[in-house]
Every structure is written in C-alpha cells, then in structure tokens.
C-alpha cells in the first residue's frame, strides 16, 4: 500500500517537473508585431530626443525582453511547484510518526519537489543591476531559513529514524527533527504568503 502511494506520488511529481521544465525551456512566446519606437518611427524618435531622452533610454532591446520572458516563465514555474511542495510538506507534517514509512516517503518526495522548486528560482536569469527589494527581498530572506531547514530536517529525521529502528531512546539532534520541520514549514509558508504578481 505504502509502496503504491510512493509510486503514485513520484509519478505525479516527475510529471509536474517534466511538464514545467519543458514549458520553461520552450519559452518562445509568440511575439506580435510591435511598433519599435526608436527603430521604425522616426517622428517619435525625433519627439523623444527633443524632450532630452537619450537613445540608450528609448532604444528597444530584444535580448533584454527575451531574458525577462524566460525569467517570468521560470518564476511562474517556481510558483506552481511551490504549491506542490507546500502540499507535500503539509502531508509530511500531518503524517503520524507511528506511520514511519509513509512519513519517510513523503519526506523524500517533499525534498525532491523542494529541489525542483528551488531550481527554477536559482537558475532564473537575473537582469543587469538587479537588486531585491520589497516583498521579494523578504521572500529571499525566508528562503535562507527554509533552505537551511530543508538540509537539517532530513538529517535530524534520519538520525531519529535510525535511533527508533535500533530501539534506542530519542536523543541529541534527533529530538530537534520536529522543531526543524515546523520552522522550515513556517518559513516556506511565509515565503509563499508574501508572493506578489
């Protein structure tokens, strides 16, 4: 039964990841014909330069537009995968410790999903002179908290699992597994709650 649940979860996750990776990779959104202000419209160019705008400001930059589109597409995927990860995290937290195997399976699936979520944020191209501000800055600060938490929680969990399997009392960092998990969950949920459009 548990094996089946695990297989289903991994299948769903791999489908979502493959689908979203394919979407991000094929970020060739159709671009409609545009009036490129500085290139096609001489009158507009004259008008704008008469106002004192330099060509650097008024010229179009297709490379920058392409970069922004790839970035947006990847961050949107990051957002969708974030919801999947949050769902899996919630399920892991709600699974009772008595059902250790299911808890372990959900924990591993959460970690894989978390990795895929993080990938789309870390590897989204960053525009020149980009500096995080506002909610985005807080989103990144919280990412440090849940990022560290996502490393510590499974390590503490593994130690706890081994102690339980050996029939030993729970001691040391193994005791911190629930604390680390809840902290990670709170930081992750908080990071999602302050997302912006």
């Amino acid at each position, binding site marked *: 039964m548990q094996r089946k649940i695990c297989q289903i979860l991994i299948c769903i996750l791999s489908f979502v990841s493959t689908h979203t990776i394919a979407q991000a990779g094929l970020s060739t959104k159709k*671009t*409609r014909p*545009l*009036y*490129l*202000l*500085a290139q096609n419209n001489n009158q*507009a160019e004259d*008008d*704008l330069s*008469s*106002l*004192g*705008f330099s060509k650097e*400001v*008024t*010229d*179009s*930059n*297709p490379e*920058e*537009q392409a970069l*922004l*589109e790839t*970035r*947006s597409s990847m*961050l949107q995927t990051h*957002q969708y995968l974030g919801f999947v990860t949050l769902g899996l995290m919630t399920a892991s937290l709600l699974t009772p410790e008595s059902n250790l195997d299911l808890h372990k399976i959900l924990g591993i699936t959460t970690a894989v999903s978390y990795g895929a979520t993080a990938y789309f944020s870390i590897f989204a191209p960053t*525009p020149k002179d*980009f*500096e*995080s*501000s*506002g*909610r*985005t*800055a807080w*989103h990144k600060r919280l990412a440090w908290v849940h990022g560290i938490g996502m490393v510590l929680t499974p390590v503490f969990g593994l130690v706890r699992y081994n102690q339980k399997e050996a029939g030993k009392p729970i001691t040391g960092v193994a005791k911190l597994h629930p604390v680390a998990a809840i902290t990670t969950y709170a930081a992750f949920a908080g990071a999602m709650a302050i*997302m*912006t*459009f």
Partner: protein
Amino acid sequence: MVYLLLFSLQSLAANYTLSTSEITYNVEHIAHSAQGLSKEAKGKITCTKEKCKLLVAAPIKSFSSGDSNRDHHMLETTKGALNPMVVLKGEIPKTFFQGRLHKLNLKLLFAGKENPLVIEEINPKKSTKGYEIDFNFPLSLTEYELERPALLMVPVSDEIKITVKSTWEEEK
C-alpha cells in the same frame, strides 16, 4: 501699441516645459493592490498661432513599485524592453492655461500600441511654481493587447488607474 502687439504675439506662441511630475499606476488583485511611481517623465507644450501640442513621455523602467520582482514582471508584461517609453501626445486648445475646465482628446502610445485617450476633466491651476496640471484616467490592459499578470492563478484587474500630477513652467 507695438509693445501690445509684441506681447500678444509672444503669448500666442508660448511654450511650456514639464518641470516636475509624478505618474502613478494602481493595479488591483484579490490578494493585494500595488502602486508604481515614476518621477522621470519629460514633457513640453509647444504653441503656435493656431494650436498647442502636448508631448509627455516616461521610460517604462522608471516606474517603481517598491518590489523588484513586480517591477521586472511589469516590464516583461508591458514589453517594456521592446517599447521602452510610454508617450502621451495630442493637440490642446490655445485657451488651455486660462483656468477653465477642459476635455482633451489625446493619444497614448504604450506597449507598442497607440490608442485614443479622452481626459474628461482637466483644469490647469496657476501656482508659484508654474501651472499645476493633475488628472487621472483608466487604462485597460486588454485594449493594449497585454496579458494580465496573475498570482495564485488569478489575474489582476484589467483596468489600471493612472494618476498624473505635474507642474509646468513657461519657457522664457
């Protein structure tokens, strides 16, 4: 007599420059609303004997909402790297600065598309700094063929409220 003639000719052909401005967009979403502000617009009003021409432009990049990701998403959504300027232009009446309420038929060039724009009520007010011209208008993202940004799979409202506060100085 000659002085009066020269004075009247000068006032007929007066030009004005935009000295300070604040252009704000307000976008609504069920989760929250956001405002973006630009103070980098430049503009002029050029008058001849027959008519006055208004031209105001601002770089799309100059709008800041206080959140870096939203600003870059806005830039992407509005194709701001391909069409870096938003331009408001059109003819205005010669009597524009005479302290009356006007309705203006202008054009707004935004995201590579030019649409007519009607400002229903605009009333320039003389102040110590020059002429203050404040107005607002709704902007439909659909009319400019723009995809509405979404959060939690819910798009923002189609109508964006634009507010303009500006001060104009007469050229000497």
